[in-house]
């Protein structure tokens, strides 16, 4: 009997694992199981092009039926996995079918952290294509829109809504600035101003006490008592891993599936993407990434480990995430944020682009945030953890096209 790899979860982590198995010449069966009925699709455009109406469901499809057939990938869509039997090498589906496997890949990702204020009509979370479609419809009715949570998804929704012409947009977060988990106060403040310049009302440093349904819509009540009337509310307060179906598996679960350096949760049980909690290659401890590129790199690594169990590879990601807000692209790599020292390097057009470089206490380069300056980002992604801050500063500065060099501040 030929070997079988069952991949559970059919978004970017699962699809890329299946494709990478084939491109590495895996000769067994590849079965890709997904809970949703629509063809596997990509998530980053959901808060960007799909909301804006510039990308369609087809544009964001990761794997069509015919591409799956051509690649020899068996797609089982609309089928949720409900149980994993590690000793018996079986995945059980909601309809009772049992899938035997030689290797299994857990790629069930994450879901939006549920709204603590219930789900009255007009209140949305954003994680799936269905979420994006209903939100896009509501946004076209106009404002007011209140976005609760100014992480990447919340900030992108506010920006996209302004782009759509929604008039009255308020972005609320108990933190003092947007994306404050990964940005230092100066860069976060720059983004707060960017949103304000584009007409978004920002309410940072204040929490939400409740969301009430009233006759003609919703009212978001802030911690300081302010009522914000809203036609549409988006709750973007993070994501939680889809690991519930593994409760009875005996695998170690701790806000995700705990893995070793090879992304293995047990013998022949691998994990990929947002659901996987893996040892951090440089800082120690366990971490769970929620970024697209991590899922893709881990998929390639796991596929290799399935094909070459004799020579497994370690998953050693350098954190990388991008975010598009208005006409700016924010790119983050490595370890960034408040507690670290940093320097700012102005970009080719200092009004619009810059790089913030962060250092560990010993002066080693830790990571960077770049705004609309991809060439600087490339340098920084390669340098994380290997050079001093000063070395990286020089390399990044050298990436400015000389004719347009601005003054270093």
């Amino acid at each position, binding site marked *: 009997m030929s070997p079988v790899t069952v991949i559970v979860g059919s978004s970017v982590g699962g699809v890329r694992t299946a494709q990478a198995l084939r*491109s590495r010449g895996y000769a067994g069966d590849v079965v890709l199981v997904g809970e949703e009925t629509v063809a596997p699709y990509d998530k980053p455009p959901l808060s960007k092009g799909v909301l804006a109406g510039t990308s369609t469901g087809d544009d964001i499809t990761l794997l069509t039926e015919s591409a799956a057939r051509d690649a020899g990938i068996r797609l089982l869509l609309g089928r949720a996995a409900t149980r994993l039997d590690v000793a018996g090498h079986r995945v059980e589906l909601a309809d009772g079918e049992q899938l035997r496997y030689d290797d299994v890949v857990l790629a069930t990702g994450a879901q939006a952290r549920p709204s603590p204020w219930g789900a009255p009509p007009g209140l949305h979370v954003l994680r799936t294509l269905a979420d994006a479609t209903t939100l896009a419809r509501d946004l076209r009715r106009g404002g007011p829109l209140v976005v609760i949570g100014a992480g990447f998804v919340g900030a992108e929704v506010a920006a996209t809504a302004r782009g759509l012409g929604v008039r009255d947009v308020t972005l609320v977060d108990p933190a003092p600035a947007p994306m404050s988990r990964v940005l230092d106060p100066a860069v976060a403040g720059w983004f707060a101003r960017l949103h304000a310049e584009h007409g978004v009302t920002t309410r940072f440093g204040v929490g939400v006490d409740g969301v009430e349904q009233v006759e003609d819509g919703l009212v978001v009540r802030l911690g300081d008592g302010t009522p914000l009337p809203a036609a549409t509310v988006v709750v973007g307060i993070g994501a939680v891993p889809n690991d519930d179906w593994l409760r009875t598996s005996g695998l170690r679960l701790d806000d995700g599936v705990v893995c070793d350096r090879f992304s293995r949760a047990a013998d022949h049980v691998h994990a990929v993407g947002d659901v996987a909690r893996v040892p951090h290659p440089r800082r120690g401890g366990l971490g769970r990434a929620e970024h697209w590129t991590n899922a893709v790199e881990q998929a390639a690594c796991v596929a290799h480990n399935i094909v070459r169990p004799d020579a497994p590879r370690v998953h050693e990601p350098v954190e990388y995430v991008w975010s598009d807000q208005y006409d700016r*692209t924010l790119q983050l790599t490595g370890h960034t944020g408040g507690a670290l020292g940093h320097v700012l390097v102005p970009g080719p057009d200092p009004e619009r682009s810059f790089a913030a470089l962060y250092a560990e206490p010993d002066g080693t380069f830790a990571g960077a945030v770049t705004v609309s300056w991809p060439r600087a980002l490339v340098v920084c992604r390669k340098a994380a953890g290997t050079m001093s801050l000063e070395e990286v500063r020089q390399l990044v500065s050298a990436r400015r096209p000389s004719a347009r060099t601005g003054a270093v501040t």
Partner: protein
Amino acid sequence: MALVKADLDLCQGYANCVVAADDVFDLDDDGLVVVLRKEVSGSEMDRISDAARSCPVAALRVETP
């Protein structure tokens, strides 16, 4: 032997391809991908197809004739 193709209308300068294979991909001053070497050999296929699949906007293709 395979051919690497980039669609510059799609490219957003996310630079995943450059990090995955900087001998084949680079960025120009405007942050758009430059294919440094269009032909890649069979032994490089794994690595270069991984790099192409790491493009978030599917701007890259590796075509075998």
